[in-house]
C-alpha cells in the first residue's frame, strides 16, 4: 500500500519509520520504547495534517534515547540557544523533543499504550491511545486556553466510533477536573 493510499503524508510516514528505528534500538538495550504524544499522535489517529514536523516524545531514559537518536543522524541545531531541548534530523527535516518522562503526568493506563508497526516496517513504536489523546484535548480545552482542542476531540471521536467509551469517560473526567465527559463531544 502506498502512502497516498493509506491517507498519511509521505513525510509523516518517513518520520514514524525513523521513530520506530529509534524505538527498536531502545528496546534492544532493554529499555521501554518511547511514547509518541501530542500533535503527531493526533495525526496518526486522524490522518489529518495537524503536525508541524515536530514530534513530542515521552521517555524515562532521555540520555539513552538521545544517544540512539544521534546514531541515526539527529543533531542539535547549530546556534541553538539554551531554550532548545529538541533535536532535528537534517535529512528528513523534522524534529524530536522529549517533553516528559511519561504521558499526561502518569495518568495513562499502561495497558492503553498502543504498539504500532509503521508503513514500510522498520520495527514498532508506542503511542498514546486515541482515548487518552481525546482526553488530553479535552483537558486543554477545559483549561480555557485552547478552544480549538474541542474540535479536535470531536473529529477524533468521530473517526473512532469503536473507542473504549468507559475508559474515555473516565479519562476525560480526570483531565478536565470533572467538568466534561463523553457527552460533551458527541
Amino acid at each position, binding site marked *: 500500500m502506498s502512502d497516498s493510499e493509506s491517507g498519511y503524508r509521505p513525510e509523516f510516514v518517513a518520520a514514524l519509520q525513523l521513530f520506530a528505528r529509534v524505538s527498536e534500538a531502545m528496546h534492544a538495550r532493554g529499555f521501554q520504547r518511547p511514547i509518541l504524544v501530542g500533535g503527531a499522535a493526533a495525526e496518526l489517529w486522524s490522518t489529518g495534517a495537524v503536525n508541524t514536523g515536530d514530534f513530542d516524545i515521552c521517555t524515562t531514559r532521555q540520555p539513552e534515547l538521545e544517544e540512539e537518536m544521534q546514531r541515526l543522524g539527529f543533531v542539535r541545531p547549530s546556534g541553538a540557544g539554551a531554550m532548545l531541548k529538541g533535536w532535528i534530523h537534517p535529512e528528513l*527535516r*523534522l524534529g524530536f523533543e522529549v517533553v516528559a518522562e511519561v504521558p499526561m503526568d502518569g495518568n495513562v493506563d499502561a495497558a492503553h499504550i498502543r504498539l504500532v508497526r509503521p508503513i514500510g516496517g522498520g520495527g514498532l513504536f508506542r503511542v498514546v491511545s486515541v482515548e487518552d489523546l481525546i482526553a488530553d484535548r479535552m483537558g486543554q480545552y477545559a483549561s480555557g486556553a485552547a478552544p480549538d482542542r474541542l474540535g479536535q476531540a470531536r473529529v477524533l471521536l468521530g473517526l473512532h466510533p469503536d473507542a473504549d467509551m468507559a475508559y474515555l469517560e473516565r479519562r476525560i473526567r480526570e483531565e478536565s477536573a470533572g467538568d466534561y465527559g463523553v457527552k460533551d463531544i458527541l
Partner: protein
Amino acid sequence: MALKTSSESEPPQAEAVIDMAELGARLSARRAELGCASEMPRNAGNRRTASKRALLAAIEATGAKW
C-alpha cells in the same frame, strides 16, 4: 512519575500490534463517510513553549514544508 503498572521492561506484547497501513485505510474510509466533519482543526500554536518555538524555527531553517 511512573505510568500506572509500568516497569522498565514493557508488558508482553499480548495486545495486537496496530498496522499503520490498515489504520490509515480504515481512517480514510471513515473520513469519506463523515465528509467535512472529519477535517481536523490544526493547533492555533499559542501554547507553544520557548523550546518548542526554537525547535520549529530550526526545522523551518532546514527548508522543511510540513
